[in-house]
């Protein structure tokens, strides 16, 4: 704020004030509903997840193997060329221990989340997923992990068909 301005407008209020009804408010709920078309690439990705496999796409021009798969290579700006199955193991690129949920409420059990660089894809191609069966204090960047899948009858063709990734370590 400029030193030339000695006072500025604005009335600060607190959420408690609002809850107590000190100020008039209008409350409404907004419920937009969507059914997003997954498209060619992700539809196949999800179908493969249902089969317990991870699939990627290859661009013959830059030779990158891309996951999540996409029908166009964003670097070369051309359609990608073929489907490639990759492994369900990988390396932790980075991770975090989350104590809050989507709406900022405190969680009883923290969620472990990581970016896992998958084996078989171009190095550095990671996906976001959860970690499990691991002591939070023992997680490290560079740790080798493997996907833990839901049983085939439970799988639906969703990213959650993989329950989480767990360390390969002591197997």
């Amino acid at each position, binding site marked *: 704020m400029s030193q030339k301005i000695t006072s500025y407008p*604005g009335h600060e209020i607190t959420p408690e004030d609002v809850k107590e009804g000190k100020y008039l408010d209008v409350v409404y709920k907004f419920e937009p509903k969507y059914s997003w078309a997954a498209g060619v690439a992700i539809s196949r990705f999800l179908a493969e997840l249902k089969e317990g496999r991870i699939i990627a796409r290859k661009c013959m021009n830059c030779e990158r193997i891309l996951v999540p798969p996409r029908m166009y290579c964003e670097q070369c700006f051309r359609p990608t060329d073929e489907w490639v199955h990759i492994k369900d193991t990988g390396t932790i690129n980075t991770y975090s221990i989350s104590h*809050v949920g989507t709406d900022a409420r405190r969680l009883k059990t923290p969620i472990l989340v990581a970016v896992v660089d998958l084996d078989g894809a171009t190095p550095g191609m*990671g996906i976001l997923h959860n970690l499990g069966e691991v002591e939070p204090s023992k997680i490290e960047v560079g740790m080798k992990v493997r996907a833990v899948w839901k049983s085939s009858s439970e799988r639906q063709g969703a990213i959650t068909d993989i329950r989480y990734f767990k360390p390969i370590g002591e197997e």
Partner: protein
Amino acid sequence: MLESPKELSFEATRMALDSAGLELKDIQSVVSGSAPDAFDGMHMKGEYLLDGMGGIGKPNQRVYVGGGTGVFTPIGGWWNVASGMYDTCLCVAEEKMSPLHPHPQYAFWSIFDQILERPLGTTLLWIFSLEMRRYMHKYGITEEEIASVAVKNKGNAVDHPCAQLGAKITVDDVMNSEPICWPVKRLDVSPPSDGAAAVVLASEKVAKKLTDQPVWLDGVGWTLDTTHWTNRDLAYPEYVEKAAWMAYKMAGIKKPRKEIDIAEVYDPFDYKELHHMEGLQLAGKGEAPKMAVDGVTQRDGDLPVCPSGGLLGVGNPIAAAGMMKICEVFWQLRGEAGKRQVKKDARTGLAQAWGDLMQVGTVAVMRS
């Protein structure tokens, strides 16, 4: 705040017009900036806000690049004037996060991929904590070094009249604050806030008539990186570097570290200030923490960073936060920042904002 989004916009707009000595009729076009519609609780938020921003009967553009919007709004104003289409342009950024219940944080859930990410229970904090972890790992940076930024900024904010979280704290306070999404702790992060800020841009000939202390927008730059943020090495913000060079090239800057006197760098989290400093070429890769710990970025240092107190100290009304930084550089370059005025003689300043899924860099170079 009690004010409605329109009222917030009006207050900032009125103050900007007053400081320029102009009336609404002197303004030829309006650029507005406001981040996710979800916060204010409306669809087509730009349309709703435009009367509070003085836009009735005028050409309006609402620009939107996530968190980068705050610095991008005056860039929008820049192209309105630099194209020769308009001589004056009012740029207003507004954000009212409080209407969203149960917590403004919730709106951020919808920035993630609907199919591949949201089902995992994502929250915005995740991408920051993942990036912080990667940055620390790659360059061997400690949480304490990062915490020194929070200490600096919250301390700086004590001198800002609008500050939400200005306070004199210590590195220990930060280290002991509750972990939210480790390694991010409560005092590492900026709060959701309500706010609005505005600037008036004018062509050279009009500016010279209005004031004998104009601040020039000499360089603008912006860049957007790939949607697939998990395919990138998060340790370095390449998008900030590209945006910075676009602005530096325009402003004729070849050695940013030497030529930039003061920088308002986007700091929604303390480590972000360091991360962005490196992207902005103000520090080598992995070297920003040392500059922070050595006091180079303090108000009396060689390269003051966030003398205003930044988002960590003043507050983070997403779009308005970036604009607040533009305003701070403006006041610093004119010597009007009062208790926050940096010691050195500042002639060239920089404001930068970040946005999206670790994708957007928006940079503005200003000179007095």
